[in-house]
């Protein structure tokens, strides 16, 4: 809330030179502002507040300095209490206000791909560099989603958006690899008709076929149906080894799993796998007993499974914020903040001033970055070169880490 008010105040007196020392007064060196844009109300609130914490931690560790540049941080909220989740109007509004505030040279977030689809074109025209910790939709950066993606997000033709999380093409592949390793021969694919669900189911399907898993059928389910008994009866007739679901929890997946088990396809005999859209407590609550043994992929590694530097971060985070337990995306927020701050530092060192253009250039120049997620680079699309994802399974009413899945090799 304060962040939003802050943003408005700065806009009010904006128009100064970029990153210049308009704060006036004594010895002030160059300054710059970064903003984060996260849903801080509703279901995502808990996880995203830890991301704000992680960004704060990254700044504190650098004394709010990116090299010689003094950094100011504004946390924006793209959710509304009424919606309980991200809101289209808020996303657009936040992007507009940051675009107009010339002190802002970097953007962290957003969390939701749908919100990103609104914000990227606005910030693209403003030439503002973005680092997301949570958007996995393929189409934001490369072909594979809708026909006119990703071009429609970049009206200027120059890229400004990067992400430290692994995109859904690799997550779809991770699901297929995991199934192959479990000895699955035939799979039935379902999706919830939404952009995310269809997208990831498409990616899974391509990879499953490439890995020699037979796709027995593909169907989009109606998220409002009372039950899926007839559908599951038909699927059971085909004797699949697994059912893959691309979609999110609110789209009736609890019922879907119940009816799958009810149709005689227990989770031991027939794998039920979803992606990070069902990797949450709410799924287990909705599915009840039928959740036990369900597989879900995650587009990265949980904090406890990160390599060495990641474990150091976990320790530092828990010392600084003992009351906000670390979540899966917290370390991705920390990485995003550090990548952005390093880009600002390099941009200043190279140009003698901090410009949006310079930050974007340096962001995309990030190579062999040694961070808490490992050593990785941004490719020309702004995607991470990391290929390690993870798989989790429901055990006794919660998701437990099951394995890492490297999609880098065949």
């Amino acid at each position, binding site marked *: 809330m304060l962040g939003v008010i802050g943003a408005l105040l700065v806009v009010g007196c904006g128009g100064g030179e970029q990153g210049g020392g308009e704060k006036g007064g004594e010895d002030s060196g160059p300054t710059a502002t970064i903003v984060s844009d996260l849903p801080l109300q509703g279901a995502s609130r808990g996880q995203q507040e830890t991301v704000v914490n992680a960004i704060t931690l990254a700044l504190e560790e650098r004394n709010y300095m990116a090299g010689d540049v003094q950094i100011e941080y504004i946390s924006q909220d793209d959710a509304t209490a009424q919606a309980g989740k991200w809101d289209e109007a808020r996303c657009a509004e936040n992007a507009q206000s940051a675009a107009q505030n010339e002190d802002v040279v970097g953007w962290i977030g957003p969390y939701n791909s749908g919100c990103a689809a609104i914000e990227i074109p606005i910030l693209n025209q403003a030439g503002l560099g973005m680092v997301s910790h949570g958007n996995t939709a393929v189409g934001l950066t490369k072909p594979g989603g809708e026909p006119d993606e990703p071009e429609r997000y970049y009206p200027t033709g120059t890229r400004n958006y990067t992400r430290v999380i692994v995109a859904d093409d690799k997550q779809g592949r991770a699901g297929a690899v995991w199934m192959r390793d479990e000895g699955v021969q035939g799979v039935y694919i379902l999706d919830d008709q939404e952009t995310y669900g269809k997208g990831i189911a498409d990616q899974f399907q391509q990879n499953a076929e490439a890995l020699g898993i037979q796709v027995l059928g593909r169907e989009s389910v109606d998220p409002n149906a*009372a039950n899926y008994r*007839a*559908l599951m009866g038909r699927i059971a007739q085909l004797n699949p080894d697994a059912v893959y679901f691309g979609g999110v*929890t609110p789209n009736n997946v*609890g019922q879907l799993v119940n009816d799958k088990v*009810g*149709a005689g396809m227990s989770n031991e005999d027939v794998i039920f796998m979803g992606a990070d859209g069902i990797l949450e407590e709410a799924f287990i*609550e909705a599915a*009840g007993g039928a959740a036990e043994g369900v597989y879900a992929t995650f587009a990265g590694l949980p904090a406890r499974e990160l390599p060495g530097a990641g474990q150091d971060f976990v320790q530092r985070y828990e010392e600084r914020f003992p009351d906000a337990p670390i979540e899966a995306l917290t370390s991705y927020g920390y990485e995003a903040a550090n990548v952005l701050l390093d880009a600002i530092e390099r941009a200043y060192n190279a140009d003698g001033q901090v410009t949006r253009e310079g930050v974007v250039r340096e962001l995309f120049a990030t190579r062999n970055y040694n961070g808490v997620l490992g050593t990785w680079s941004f490719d020309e699309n702004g995607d991470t070169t990391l290929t390690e994802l993870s798989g989790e399974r429901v055990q006794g009413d919660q998701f437990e880490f099951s394995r890492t899945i490297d999609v880098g090799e065949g």
Partner: protein
Amino acid sequence: MAPTQEAKAKGTALLDSFKASSWQSRIAMAIVVALLLLLLVQAIKDPGQFVSQLLVGITNGAIIALIALGYTLVYGIVELINFAHGDNFMIGSFVGVTVLSGTFLGLGFFAPIGDESGAAMKIVGVLLALVVAMVLCGLINVGIERVAYKPLRNSPRLAVLITAIGMSFILQNLGLVWKGSSQISFPSLVSDSNALAGITDAISYRWKDIFVVLVTIPLLVGLSYFIQRTRQGKAMRAVAQDKEAAAMMGINVNRTISVAFLLGGILAGASGVMFGLFNGTTVFDLGFRQGLFAFTAAVLGGIGNLTGAVLGGILIGVIGAMNDQYIGVRWTDIVIFTVLILVLVFRPRGLLGDRSAVQGGGGQQ
């Protein structure tokens, strides 16, 4: 008229009606026959699967029918679409979950009845949940009628329509406040295993399906006994036919209408709990979708007609299941509502004609 003459008259009438029928209706008949033949071919190919899906359809249809009865009962008496009925049904399922959890307003009354409870405990739990939900939903429905419909009985139709939609939203949002926006799971008190396991494996008919039959049939029998055989039922039929005349004959119209709403609410409560136990999940906006289907069923069968509501519900269930099996899930809504439109184009009053049952039996009496 002598019986033979009557039969002959009927025969020529049939021929005449065919001659008089438009080419559209002949095409429609031809399509229906072709579809039935296609289904028959599938049924012969894999009878086990066909029968299983037919049973799934009938069970799903029975649940829709039970909700549809609530719409049609109230419509038959006061000619009002009680939009809040679907949401009352949702409240019924929430009441069921709450009763089974044994905890209300933070007070634990008894240990939760769940998957691990003994058989006797499960039966007690199911009955308790059903009874509590039926009573509460009945009272809610009566309350809604008193507050939102009765004062508007002589107002323009639109006013009641809007208050009904308003009540629907109020209940839905109360459900949202009560249990939140995500799905909640029901304890599995009724077994998922195949009841025919020992007899045949080709057909799947689960104990859950039997449970639906065990709840639905007594309710249907009880309802039709009440309307056909009791004094109060007779009063309901009289009010349905002509409110003013019934009042002149000394029937308490207000009380009779209240009873109709009470019955509708009881059915909503029972079907809510049954839906939850059968499907295993419930959610705050359940009533909208299920209510829409039930309302469709009521119109399909002929609104106001109790037999019609049951027929419409089962028809929608079976069409849905057959479509899921042989055509594709994405087409289900398209097919169901196409059937509805076709039926209404050729029989604007629904399959069995409207209002006749509450007014005293089916058919063109």
